[in-house]
């Protein structure tokens, strides 16, 4: 561990002289910052969730075609969005770690994976519960559903692979390769409803045209999406703090921290 703590102190020194961004790239500096930001993102998540659920259940009207069954949308769409966003962010951190060899990058990738897997599972679960009353089936092997299931396997594969390798730096590199290769699945999920004839409906919201839903429905969905974002950030910050402690156990700053408490 001497080697690791030496390289850590060099990194910390460089960070201290460098830009603000570089300074916080050192786990030692990021640990307290993450601790300060975490409760804010958690509080915002709770606020947006309460507002989103209120709009979703008490303001948004009954859907003309689907009745009340459509209210699954307020959890389904944010979960599905998050499952894709988090994968891209995770793969970006992983790629950054490969290129710059910064230790925090791999830690961030590992911190995002379980939350991403959870949202992927939720997208599939809520999709099944929505599909049954509207399509008449829990599951169908169409392009959208199948590619989302593959996303879940990618997250699980990433977690299993990085946990199976004892040396964390090697685990980060192996996980990064898997995460980067898996990014190809994201556009496949997103465009699946256009490229193939799927049972799944097309996008309700897109940047190029007006949303195909009532304004209050859209508001509820966007509030819930914001809640999911804030929750994901809070959860990832919390997890990365544990990962930093686990990996840097022998580093001087943690030993010093212990002495202070």
């Amino acid at each position, binding site marked *: 561990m001497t080697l690791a703590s030496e390289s850590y102190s060099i990194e910390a020194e460089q960070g201290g002289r460098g830009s603000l961004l570089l300074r916080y790239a050192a786990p030692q500096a990021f640990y307290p910052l993450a601790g300060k930001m975490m409760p804010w993102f958690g509080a915002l998540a709770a606020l947006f969730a309460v507002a989103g659920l209120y709009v979703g*259940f*008490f303001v948004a*009207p*009954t859907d003309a075609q689907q*009745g*009340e*069954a459509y*209210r*699954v949308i307020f*959890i*389904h769409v944010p*979960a599905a969005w998050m499952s894709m966003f988090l994968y891209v962010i995770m793969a970006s951190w992983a790629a950054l770690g490969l290129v710059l060899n910064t230790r925090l990058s791999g830690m961030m990738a590992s911190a995002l994976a*379980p*939350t991403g897997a*959870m949202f992927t*599972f*939720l997208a599939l*679960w*809520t999709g099944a*519960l*929505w599909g*049954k*009353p509207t399509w008449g089936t829990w599951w169908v092997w169409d392009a959208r559903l199948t590619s989302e299931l593959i996303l879940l396997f990618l997250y699980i594969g990433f977690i299993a692979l990085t946990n199976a390798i004892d040396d964390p730096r090697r685990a980060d590199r192996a996980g990064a390769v898997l995460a980067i290769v898996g990014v190809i699945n994201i556009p496949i999920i997103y465009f699946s409803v256009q490229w193939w004839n799927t049972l799944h409906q097309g996008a309700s919201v897109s940047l190029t045209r007006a949303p195909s839903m009532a304004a209050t429905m859209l508001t509820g969905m966007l509030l819930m999406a914001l809640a999911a974002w804030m*929750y994901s950030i809070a*959860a990832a910050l*919390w*997890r990365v*703090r*544990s990962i930093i*402690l*686990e990996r840097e*156990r022998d580093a001087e700053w*943690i*030993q010093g*921290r*212990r002495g202070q408490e």
Partner: protein
Amino acid sequence: MNWGSLDSFLAMGGYGLYVWGSYAVAALCIAAELWLLARRARRAERTQ
């Protein structure tokens, strides 16, 4: 206001199982993740 009574709110126009099944499992997943996060943080602190 969409709902005249608690019963009609819970019934969700006959789709209660699907709607509440979605939100209940989402709440469970989030609660489970928060519990795991707290446990991991406790253990990481303790084993320093």
